[in-house]
């Protein structure tokens, strides 16, 4: 396997594998978030479990971080390489005639998602790490000790219309990213999704339903609190 | 005693080739490493020869004007490749393929060569399958065959409608393997502009790098010309735009005899010309004639109405149509050989019955095939009393499955739907049976200079059968030349590397350079195409599907005058030291302007009608065959081999008498 990940195709596999991992993560993230719409308690329980269970914290979390970083870094590297493969650009290029906007602009939808992730890290992840590992409070309880803090923190974040707006826009970009990314990952992995209608339909559904769900959750909390 | 020695080995026909191979001189592997061979042209013949010679251990240099060997015009062959495999068990054999080819060539080819061709044909299929050529297969996984061009067996192997492409890519892949091994050095975008002779032997070439314009000297112990045919002498043909006779013509001028230039195949099923701007003609597979019926209107009024758009062909009833091939040749009908079908179309159009604006088109109608297949399918599917629409739908499905890609191509070009209105077709120049004269070893009259594939004259006589061009190209390249060239090269093992700094190379390069400079500096007032089109016009009108003495004499004079005008007034923009396609064309057209004149002379001398060469003076005068071509075996059963002597018309004729020991000469009849 020496040199595999340095080759063009090896890197495609790497992008696809990290994408698969991120898509599964996204599904799991969504499953927990949607609980917040139905039951604050259930959401709190699930969040606490995820936030304190050692396998999640010490194994999945580093893998996730690696996956996210890898997907971005490799995305940038490939973009740079691909741009250098055509030094002189066309005076007129009618890309719309042969490919979707999404497929041609993965770098931009990806950058939008990256911007959102920065915001997301500042909003949730950094305070989380601060509370748990720097201050050493693994209880998951509110400052007054009355129940879990997770639901409270969540609803609090969705008060600002600006943040909700940014959130909604980011998920629109995620949807665009997934509309191409889902089937693309399968094609890269050698599974021809382009020809397999069902997989493609599922991919489209995934790419629309999931981000839409996240948006609904955000709007729900914004308008209900 | 003729100066021509065909070197056909003695002995019975059936074992000639095997016996010959057994006794041929070989070159030992260590010595092969010290021997260089130049191959000019990388189509089926040149590509396969280069790969095999490299495989054997020779150092091979290949030259082609295209940017890659994969683009040679062999790629455009559609139908298939013949081989005497008898996989269908329908009675095919080497002898039968041999017989069909000699008969199809109207008894003007060399028996021994044709027999050898038939003999090695089966090996070609084995070889190509081993190379990964994706031939069509049946559901049992075995190779499929189709029948072709009026023979009685199914012996044609095919890869969809792209057999030439797949075989060429096979030869190209074999070349690639040798390029990777360093045994072939490819010179793409290079054009051979002269052959260099040292002590009477071919010792190298002068080539121009078409990108930089630099002239290069390349030496070798043997030079193989595989540069294809000269159909573009007609300007409009089914050849590629770049197809040219320059390499063949250059060796002719240096001593290689040129044989039977007047044997040209004019293919009946091409898309008609639509205007003066037309740059080339497109062939549609002959297989269309299996199901299409050819006709023109019976009444001249209907012709006028159709041309003026007042009537559509579908408006004409059966009674108002003249299915002229079925009328004239009831036995073979629409499946008469290519030359007969082409002449019959010309006859009708000359009489004023051509159905398009240029007056040069006849209909090829699939309506009755659609109905026939539709009824058949209804029967198979158990549909009782099917409606007309249903029959049409079912029949269209079958026609689509068989010829869909051709119909699509036609529609793209002509912008008419051939399912709804009959196709229009007209004959077009397609293949040249004539070419450089070669002996049994495929060597020209210049020692060490060989000609293979369409560039030589040897195997097709006066008319080539469908699916035989690919067979000959690959047979020459893979299985014949690699043996026979060894016989010559075995005497070259002590020669050593041939220097290129000798006087011979210097003189040759100088004359090439002078010619290029002449064109660049001429600053005339007509483009190269202007002359090429005019030459094409003369050729088509006077050396085309039917020829007569008066016209041929005129043609020779007109071409000579045109050539003189060309040298005075041709204009070539740009410089010599860059990519300059006008300069390339100028050199090629200059050669066509000479070849065309020799062509007319050859046609004039051959006062008989045979195969693609039809002399109006030589027809049957009475009986059932009245008006049909008349061959004159007693006087003309020879190969015309022309020796260059300055002006084309001064060429000297040498005759190679053809002997037929195995086959009885008969007049072809398709009535």
């Amino acid at each position: 396997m020496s040199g595999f990940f340095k080759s063009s195709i090896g890197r495609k596999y790497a992008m696809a594998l990290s994408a698969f991992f991120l898509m599964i993560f996204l599904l799991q993230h969504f499953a927990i978030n949607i609980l917040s719409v139905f039951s604050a308690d259930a959401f709190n329980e699930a969040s606490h479990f995820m936030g304190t269970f050692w396998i999640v914290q010490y194994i999945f979390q580093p893998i996730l971080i690696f996956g996210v970083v890898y997907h971005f870094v490799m995305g940038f590297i490939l973009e740079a390489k691909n741009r250098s493969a055509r030094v002189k650009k066309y005076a007129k290029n009618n890309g719309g005639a042969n490919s979707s906007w999404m497929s041609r602009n993965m770098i931009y939808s990806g950058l939008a998602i990256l911007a959102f992730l920065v915001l997301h890290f500042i909003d949730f992840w950094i305070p989380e790490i601060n509370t748990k590992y720097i201050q050493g409070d693994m209880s998951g309880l509110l400052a007054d000790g009355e129940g879990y803090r997770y639901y409270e923190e969540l609803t609090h974040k969705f008060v600002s219309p600006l943040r909700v707006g940014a959130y909604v826009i980011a998920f629109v970009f995620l949807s665009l990213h997934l509309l191409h990314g889902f089937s693309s990952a399968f094609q890269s992995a050698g599974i021809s999704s382009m020809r397999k209608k069902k997989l493609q339909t599922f991919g489209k559904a995934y790419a629309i339903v999931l981000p839409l769900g996240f948006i609904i959750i955000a709007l729900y909390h914004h308008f209900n609190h | 005693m003729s100066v021509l020695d065909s070197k056909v080995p003695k002995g019975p026909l059936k074992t000639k080739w095997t016996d010959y191979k057994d006794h041929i001189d070989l070159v030992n592997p260590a010595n092969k490493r010290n021997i260089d061979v130049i191959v000019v042209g990388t189509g089926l013949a040149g590509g396969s020869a280069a790969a095999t010679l490299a495989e054997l251990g020779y150092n091979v240099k290949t030259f082609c004007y295209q940017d890659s060997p994969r683009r040679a015009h062999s790629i455009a062959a559609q139908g298939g490749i013949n081989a005497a495999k008898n996989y269908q068990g329908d009675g095919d054999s080497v002898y039968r393929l041999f017989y069909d080819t000699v008969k199809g060539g109207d008894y003007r080819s060399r028996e021994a060569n044709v027999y050898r061709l038939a003999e090695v044909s089966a090996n070609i299929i084995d070889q190509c399958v081993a190379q990964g050529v994706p031939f069509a297969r049946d559901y049992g996984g075995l190779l499929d065959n189709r029948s072709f061009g009026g023979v009685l067996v199914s012996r044609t192997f095919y890869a969809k409608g792209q057999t030439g492409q797949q075989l060429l890519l096979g030869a190209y892949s074999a070349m690639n393997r040798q390029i990777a091994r360093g045994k072939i050095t490819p010179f793409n975008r290079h054009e051979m502009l002269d052959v260099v002779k040292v002590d009477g032997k071919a010792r190298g070439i002068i080539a121009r790098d078409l990108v930089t314009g630099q002239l290069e000297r390349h030496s070798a112990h043997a030079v193989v010309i595989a540069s294809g045919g000269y159909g573009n002498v007609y300007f409009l043909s089914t050849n590629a735009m770049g197809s040219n006779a320059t390499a063949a013509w250059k060796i002719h001028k240096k001593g290689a005899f040129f044989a039977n230039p007047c044997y040209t195949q004019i293919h009946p099923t091409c898309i008609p010309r639509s205007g003066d701007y037309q740059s080339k003609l497109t062939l549609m597979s002959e297989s269309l004639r299996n199901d299409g019926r050819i006709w023109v209107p019976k009444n001249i009024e209907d012709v006028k109405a159709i041309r003026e758009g007042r009537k559509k062909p579908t408006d004409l009833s059966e009674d108002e149509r003249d299915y002229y091939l079925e009328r004239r040749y009831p036995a073979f009908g629409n499946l008469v050989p290519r030359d007969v079908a082409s002449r019959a179309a010309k006859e009708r159009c000359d009489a004023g019955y051509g159905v398009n604006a240029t007056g040069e088109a006849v209909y090829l109608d699939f309506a009755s095939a659609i109905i026939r297949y539709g009824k058949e399918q209804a029967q198979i599917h158990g549909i009782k009393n099917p409606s007309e629409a249903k029959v049409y739908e079912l029949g269209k499905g079958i026609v689509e499955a068989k010829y869909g890609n051709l119909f699509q191509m036609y529609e793209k070009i002509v912008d008419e739907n051939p399912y709804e209105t009959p196709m229009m077709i007209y004959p077009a120049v397609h293949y040249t049976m004539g070419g450089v004269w070669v002996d049994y070893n495929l060597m020209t009259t210049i020692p060490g200079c060989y000609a293979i594939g369409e560039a030589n004259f040897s195997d097709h006589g006066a008319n080539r059968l469908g699916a035989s061009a690919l067979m000959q190209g690959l047979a020459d390249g893979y299985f014949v030349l690699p043996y026979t060239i060894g016989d010559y090269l075995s005497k070259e093992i002590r020669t050593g590397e041939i220097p290129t700094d000798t006087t011979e190379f210097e003189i040759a390069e100088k004359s090439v350079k002078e010619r290029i400079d002449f064109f660049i500096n001429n600053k005339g007032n007509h483009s190269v195409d202007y002359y090429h089109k005019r030459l094409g016009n003369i050729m088509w009108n006077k050396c085309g599907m039917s020829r007569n003495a008066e016209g041929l004499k005129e043609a020779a004079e007109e071409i000579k005058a045109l050539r003189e005008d060309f040298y005075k007034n041709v204009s070539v923009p740009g410089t010599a030291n860059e990519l300059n396609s006008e300069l390339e064309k100028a050199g090629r057209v200059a050669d066509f302007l000479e070849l065309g004149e020799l062509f007319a002379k050859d046609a004039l001398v051959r006062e008989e009608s045979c195969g693609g060469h039809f002399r109006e003076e030589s027809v049957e005068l009475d009986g059932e065959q009245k008006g049909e071509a008349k061959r004159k075996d007693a006087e003309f059963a020879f190969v015309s081999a022309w020796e260059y002597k300055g002006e084309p018309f001064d060429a000297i004729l040498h005759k190679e008498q053809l002997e037929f020991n195995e086959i009885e000469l008969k007049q072809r009849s398709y009535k």
Partner: protein
Amino acid sequence: MNLTLKIWRQKGPKDKGSMVDYKVSEISEHMSFLEMMDVLNEQLINQGEEPVAFDHDCREGICGSCSMFINGEAHGPDRGVTTCQLHMRMFKDGDTITIEPFRAKAFPVIKDLVVDRSSFDRVQHAGGYISVNTSGNTQDANAIPISKHAADEAMDAATCIGCGACVASCKNASAMLFVGAKVSQYALLPQGRIEAVDRVKNMVAQMDLEGFGNCTNTGACEVECPKGISLENIARMNREYLTANIKD
């Protein structure tokens, strides 16, 4: 019809080049695109100017020589055709047509619209063959039956004409459709399986070396391919490449 043409003119490989406007008139809708170019060139020659250089040969869509990027698409706006099969009826009187060479680092411009596609040849040298002697002493052609399905699929991959439209259309100038088609043709046939591991590795390595971009599955290549080579061939090459690396 009358047209305005915006054509890339570049004297030689090292020159800078620019777009130049030309006018052509009385163009028939039945002309092929290249015949329209012939008219322009005849006009230029008669005016004493240098004609526009472009690659072309068979003019029937099979040799793969012609290579123009017309109005932002390889081989122009029609589907399933090469430039030589593109007809002027696809355009309207008064149109402005932009004509550029295929652009990719691996396809450097030689002159005007002519590009150097020898990188494709070098990829083929790296493994685009089956290592069998050309002696003809192989086994009988029918000794190994091949399912009709596999043979047909191999044929579909093999119809590639090597024109480079896939590279030209791809936003990344990737050659994966071309390489995938060749890898697939051999991978699908038992004759080609024997060297499958080395072939795919060598061809991909050469492809990367030539400076082609990476595939991001936009599918533009498949749409613009005059022979309709399927993206499935890229997926198959990816599979072949993975298994080749695992086996090794």
